[in-house]
């Protein structure tokens, strides 16, 4: 029996080709597939709370007809005979939609943006062995988290002859280990499970947890010199996914970087942020099958170089597209490193806060790029370059124009990859890469 990737490729080609061959002369179509065969194992206290196996395939169809646009998606079974029947039905539904809808003024013409075919096979542990491998390695710890692994697929075809296929076998173990209410966070991810690497990762986490044995220090609200480790910077950077780089958002008045774009505010020359597909964390083609630039500076030395501009926005506002996804969110974001060496982090922090993670961020004032959120996991009070005690969690409320602006003192010369661990509806692709940052007067309010 063919494996999931091979079977899905055959199924997608059969169904997509059937739809494309069925189009009338006044119709054009773009087709996407998202599919996965995933094992999820949820742990609590190094025991299995729930384990779930999921096999799913979703086909999305955009039909253009007489200037109208209909978008439909439907589940595929993987069985060609059944799926050809439902594809015929949904194509008819899309035609009916087009007949009912008004003209789409910003319809993007369907063109051939090329062909790609990439399948990255991994060496994952057999599903029957995963639980033993993880619980044995984590024995003696209060271990909680999620293992997720298996093949995932993104593919595209259109009526202009374009064709893209991306399949990858990978996994992540997103975990935390606890000492009472104190905890340390870790993620072990990749395409090849290596028991020694996982044990080494856990060992790092255990060492960090041992530093939390001292009583928590309760700090008063105020401004503190603060080191954000790469995990905390990743949380801060996650706010850039909320429409910050959307050109449409800029034109509609909702981008948090509006004042940066309009030169009313500036960021530090130490801060450079790029969209970097060379990292190989995800595929370059978007849902229109367009290839984004391999490497694109979004903010360079503190200045906004460009927004992410989709072809739809380009048409609406009469500008050039940079092949952004329709949602105009970053897909492979990297904050470039600076010069602060790992061995010097505590010395340069001197006295202040070392924050490994942040939690539950949200805009408190989007127009001024002000964010609120909490400290979480291994966060310490540092005096004279020495870790003194873990801290009781604090709430911060801080503008990016301050902490990534004049108050950004240094960026580390090392970065960490933050793999995507989101599993809403399906496993996410990709991730981002971030350094640590030393910041003065980071503001805490509660």
């Amino acid at each position: 029996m063919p494996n999931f990737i091979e079977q899905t490729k055959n199924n997608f080609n059969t169904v997509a080709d059937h739809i494309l061959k069925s189009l009338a002369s006044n119709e054009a179509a773009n087709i996407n597939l998202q599919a996965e065969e995933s094992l999820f194992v949820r742990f609590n206290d190094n025991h299995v709370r729930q384990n779930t196996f999921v096999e799913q395939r979703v086909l999305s169809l955009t039909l253009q007809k007489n200037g109208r646009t209909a978008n439909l998606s439907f589940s595929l079974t993987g069985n060609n005979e059944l799926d050809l029947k439902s594809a015929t039905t949904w194509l008819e539904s899309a035609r009916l939609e087009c007949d009912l809808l008004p003209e789409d003024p910003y319809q993007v013409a369907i063109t051939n943006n090329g062909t790609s075919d990439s399948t990255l096979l991994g060496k994952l542990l057999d599903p029957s062995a995963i639980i033993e491998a993880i619980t044995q390695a984590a024995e003696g710890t209060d271990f909680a988290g999620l293992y997720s692994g298996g093949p995932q697929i993104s593919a595209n075809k259109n009526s202009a002859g374009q064709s893209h296929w991306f399949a990858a076998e990978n996994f992540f173990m997103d975990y935390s280990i606890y000492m009472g209410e104190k905890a340390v966070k870790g993620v072990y991810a990749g395409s090849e499970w290596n028991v020694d690497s996982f044990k080494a990762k856990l060992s790092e986490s255990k060492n960090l947890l041992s530093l939390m044995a001292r009583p928590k220090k309760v700090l008063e609200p105020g401004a503190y010199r603060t080191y954000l480790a790469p995990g905390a910077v990743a949380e801060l950077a996650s706010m850039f996914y909320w429409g910050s780089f959307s050109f449409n958002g800029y034109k509609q008045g909702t981008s948090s970087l509006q004042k940066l774009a309009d030169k009313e505010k500036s960021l530090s020359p130490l801060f450079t942020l790029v969209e970097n597909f060379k990292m190989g964390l995800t595929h370059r083609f978007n849902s229109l099958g367009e290839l984004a630039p391999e490497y694109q500076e979004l903010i360079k030395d503190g200045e906004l170089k460009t927004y992410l501009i989709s072809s739809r926005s380009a048409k609406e506002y009469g500008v050039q597209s940079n092949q952004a996804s329709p949602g105009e969110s970053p897909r492979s974001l990297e904050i470039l490193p600076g010069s602060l060496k790992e061995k010097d982090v505590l010395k340069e922090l001197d006295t202040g806060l070392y924050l490994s993670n942040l939690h539950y961020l949200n805009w408190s004032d989007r127009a001024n790029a002000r964010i609120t959120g909490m400290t979480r996991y291994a966060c310490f009070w540092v005096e004279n370059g020495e870790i003194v005690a873990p801290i009781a969690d604090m709430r911060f409320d801080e503008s990016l124009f301050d902490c990534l602006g004049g108050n950004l003192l240094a960026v580390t010369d090392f970065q960490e990859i933050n793999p995507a661990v989101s599993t809403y509806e399906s496993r996410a692709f990709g991730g981002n890469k971030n350094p640590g940052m030393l910041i003065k007067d980071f503001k805490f309010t509660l």
Partner: protein
Amino acid sequence: MLDLNRTMKNLKSEVDWLNLRFVTEKTTYRSVRDDKPDTNNINFDQGIMIEVIVNGHFGFSGTSDLSDSGIKRALQKAVAVAKAGSKHKVHDFSLAQRPASQGSYRSPVVKPLDSFSAKEIMDIFTAATSAMKLSDHIVSRSATAMIVETQVHSMSSSGADIAQNFSIVSTDYSATALKNGETQTRTDSGGLARCLQIGAEVFNRESILARCTRVAEEALELLDAENCPNTSMDLILAPDQMTLQVHESIGHPLEYDRILGDERNYAGWSFVKPEDFGSLQYGSKLMNVTFDPSISDAMASYAFDDSGLKAEKEYLIKDGKLLRGLGGLESQSRLGLPGVANSRSSSWNRAPIDRMANINLEPGTSSLEEMIAQTERGVFMMANKSWSIDDYRNKFQFGCEYAKLIENGKLTKTLKNPNYRGITVPFWSSLKAVSAARETYGSPYCGKGEPNQIIRVGHTNPFCLFENVEVFGA
């Protein structure tokens, strides 16, 4: 449509007990921006979750392959994962956590959703965005609907047979105003907060246009408004902000899976301990909170949860005292505490976990006018726009779209960028008046769980007055 009876007969001989949960869901997105069509998407999702118990452990396997062979393969996977997990199971479960209930549920609908065409919706929405064009300072106008039709049919080998059909519409009407570098957005009670189990009657042209005009007027009003002051003062929250307040600072901390630590690695833990039930004074004596799946049009009304437990109204907090938490039969067995029917999954591809459903503050006896009249200096905040709370659900900071200053018992100036912060129990202890009138809102997007799940929640709440709260502006 999958015939579960036939499927069950085909599979029954292979394991001692199994449950099939077949879900079909059609989600239609319609939106108009600046009088032009923006989004028209129809997503049709279907699949089946196979659930088995092996050695006291549940195994789950979901598939979109609805062929006979696909379902058989999914059953084999369910058995395999149950066996593998059972050696390290967190608890010894049994059929006691899967009652053999039978019954059905259907959302209250006056006009079926398919009685209203795409064209009719787009026509109303185009008129709606036109109605918001009150000034050149309005730079963005949008009207959005998310229309969901869900059928869930569950059947177990022990005799459970439950069919539930949901008709849900979430709408959002939004205007963004811009002047001299100042941007303000006002919506119709918060982004998609106006979400109900309802039919096409929700698309009432007259009501929508009137609300859109108010939304645009208030967006413009905010451009010239003063910032919310930075001080501590009395705070009145409208029901569309109480939705968020109740959700984050009561709903989530009372979820048993958080208290048990299942959720620690993702959304977080809870400040509530098992021993707090029956003893913790959560708030003032005016605070009465219920889990109520019987509110007719609320988002999370249903007859049975996904374990098959019949859903009934229960008091969680009475006269300010914590009585009961939000946990389904699995968590109740693990904790030895009574709970509610809230074992819910987002769809066929996820296992059920403890989720809040409709969590409501019961009505009081005051009117909004009386609350305003008794406030010497305070602020009245409406419609959520920002939310953040710690992983134990203690330290929160929430922001609203629109506010009015209260001076000497009267509403005076409009305030922009209103925010407030506090700590859960002290905040609820400061509750000093609750209105008799209530309004129903909710969210289609409550995220939680590993793997992640989005679920729908409903909140029917009164206006509430809180004493001496830290408020601030931009």
